[in-house]
């Protein structure tokens, strides 16, 4: 099989023979993260979130609950937003973008800029997840994915005019902010979407 690493971002394989009575509980994993390839041996139980935080020193993705309930760990996998605490690293075969990979060198991503400009954060712990989530959310909206509050029959919310605060609030509700910065987060996303 062709090495698909360049496009799919990672591959995993099990070390050791199949006849072993106690299969090695670790795997070699190759992950493509923020444009860099990382090859590492990981306990098979390691989540993508713990891989980032504990093995790659990419601590921008936060652990708020470890159970897919808060969104603090949101990163982009293959361009889609996912809760990285719910993904085992060994299953992750698409390129990963974390908050550390959003800025273009010193130039912040427009959403990062907007979060600063609108003070869309306080403690900052939910912030990387909010921003990664918003990046993918804007793409989803641009691709015409409807949300729970999109009126039936509307031709998708791709038109930024249709991305109302209500749409943003609905689409961002997987990311909890206990500091209660939602009002500013919605403003920031609207500003960045324009």
């Amino acid at each position, binding site marked *: 099989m062709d090495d698909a690493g360049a496009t799919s971002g990672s591959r995993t394989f099990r070390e050791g023979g199949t006849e072993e009575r106690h299969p090695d509980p670790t795997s070699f994993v190759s992950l493509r993260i923020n444009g860099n390839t990382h090859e590492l041996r990981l306990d098979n139980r390691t989540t993508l979130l713990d891989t980032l935080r504990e093995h790659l020193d990419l601590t921008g993705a936060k652990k708020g609950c470890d159970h897919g309930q808060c969104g603090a760990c949101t990163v982009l996998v293959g361009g889609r937003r996912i809760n990285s605490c719910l993904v085992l690293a060994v299953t992750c075969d698409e390129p990963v973008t974390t908050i550390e990979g959003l800025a273009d060198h010193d130039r912040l991503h*427009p959403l990062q800029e907007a979060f600063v400009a609108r003070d869309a954060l306080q403690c900052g712990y939910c912030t990387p997840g909010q921003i990664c989530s918003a990046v993918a959310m804007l793409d989803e909206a641009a691709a015409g994915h409807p949300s729970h509050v999109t009126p039936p029959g509307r031709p998708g919310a791709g038109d930024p005019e249709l991305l109302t605060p209500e749409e943003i609030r609905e689409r961002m509700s997987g990311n909890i902010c*206990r500091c209660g910065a939602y009002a*500013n987060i919605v403003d920031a996303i609207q500003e960045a979407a324009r």
Partner: protein
Amino acid sequence: MPTNSPPQVPAAPEEDTAERRDAADRRDPDARRDAGQKVTGTARYAAEHTPPGCLHAVPVPATVARGEVTAVHADELLRRPGVQAVLSHTNAPRLGEAEDPTLALLQTARVPHRGWYVALVVADTLENARAAADDLRIEYATEEHDPGPPAGHPGLYAPEEANGGHPGLRERGDFDAAFATSAVRVDATYTMTAQHNHPMEPHAATAWWEDDALTVYDSSQGATKVRDVLAQLFQMPRHRVTVVSAYVGGGFGSKGTPRPQAVLASMAALHLGRPVKLALPRRELAAVVGHRAPTVQRVRIGADSDGVISALAHEVVTQTSTVKEFVEQAAVPARTMYTSPHSRTSHHVVALDVPTPSWMRAPGEASGMYALEAAMDELAVATGVDPVELRLRNEPDTEPDSGRPFSSRGLPECLRQGARLFGWEGRDPRPGVRRAGDRLTGTGVAASTYPYLLSPSSASAHAAPDGTHLVRLAATDIGTGARTVLARIAAEALDVPPASVRVELGSSALPRAPLAGGSSGTSSWGWAVHKACTALAGMVRAHSGPLPPEGLTARADTAEEAGRESPYARHAFGAQFAEVDVDTVTGEVRVRRLLGVFATGRVLSRRTARSQFIGGMTMGLGMALTESSTLDPAFGDFAERDLASYHVPVCADVPALEAHWIDEEDPHLNAMGSKGIGEIGIVGTAAAIANAVHHAVGVRLRDLPLTPDRLLPHLRA
């Protein structure tokens, strides 16, 4: 897109000054100082430091409600690859006397409540530690437990003091006689479930020992306090302990006192001679980091037919644990708010076999002002007086309980401004009459209050020859904007641009400072910074020629200023207005609008202040509608322990929020003229929403939160 240009602000009508101010806040050019680090993921929180050789610890909570640990089967686990240690009361380092008994961890076999930590597993990886902690077999001798409920409990007693050092009981005049002869009487009992702080960053610590010195990165609201407590527990001089709390993912009171993670990580690091990292699992927080205790609050108000109050009683029944006494001081705001010549404010508490309550954002005020302000709404309905007008009619000349004059009292102004901005005038007071399809709509108002608190602090200020300045103190920025506002205070005192001031905070190695709590951070730290910078400015003025290479340094301490007794009653006030829709089919309440106006002295940083206000209001919305916690009597522990079951508000719950403030000059506070703003935003929100729900549906529901199951029976009837 033009990300750097200020947001477009629609032209506001000339006379609408508060709205213009709101627009000005949004344009405030001085961005939050640490926003850059936070939006790029480079701000490092307590568990994001990994010293070489760092091990991972996972705590093991008790699974019984009361009893003793009789066996810890550590041997089975120690044979596993990667497992380094299993700490329990049998082998954990002995600690010195704990001032806070919730920190006497792994010292005895006693289990005071379910969820209390009985062991700690340390392993080379998080995966190994977690699996071992899950598998650790512990045997218990269980005992009968008492989970309450507190109402009517034979163990209820009247505590000497409630939280904050307030007397448990205060009486003035003759409440019973005055109430009995009042023309209009309200007698209502309000309840609320426990509420949980749930900061987004779970409590975490990374600890290591080196040459008999302990260093801990801890998720706390005050590094100095944690340092002092760890020094006491590990019986060592303070200078050999360093606690760093540089970035903290929220606390809301739950990180105000040192918590188990700092002690457990330090113990494990001591036991193993290696760095240890520990983050408490989300689902364990409810039992070990404090919470707002559930309350049953009876409020009785006797008034004349114009609504002027003569008798006011606020009686609170709540619970604490057997580990320590904590009494939610919910009756305390009634001592400040309204004219009440005859008054009784009391607390009763019972110690149960349950987790220990503690501070949650505006303890006492958030809970007590829900009941008091809902009762005021009932009085408005009973007298036919408009709720805004009713509060104005009951403005006291001096603080009712102390008789002291108010240093400033912005409540009337907040009510008037808020009514105007919200469009309150002309409101039809009839409840239950605004129906559109399946929806009923209503509006409500409530007052807010929070005391002005102050603690002694120290700070140093340095002027370098290159024209830059450095301010240093062990303050903590838990998201409040401390870095931003302290730079402003320094710049103002030094009369230099804020950009020339750097603020170093978040470590106990810096000049001693109090914790971020009681909405007192900015006032306490700020005064010390102001004092140090004022002294430094004098030194710079007195200095002729270029500054010496090492620069000039001034130090200040506000022990004296903070210790002075004030002849004034000092409080912040506010008014909150809410509009809700109630779906008569589903029973769901949706907040449509929430508007708050606050009087908090001088606001020092508009942008971070606004974020604090709306953040508090958002949490108040959760208190009103979504945050429900059940104490399971079978286990004596909370049933809703994670974020899937304990519902904090999400983005879709939070409508257009507006926070405004009035410019309040108060010369009796501190060098900046500021009151605290971190907590007042949550005070009154729940009452405003609950009062709006009454206005919408015409039924008075007195149990928070107002979840659909509580509304539906009344909507179908």
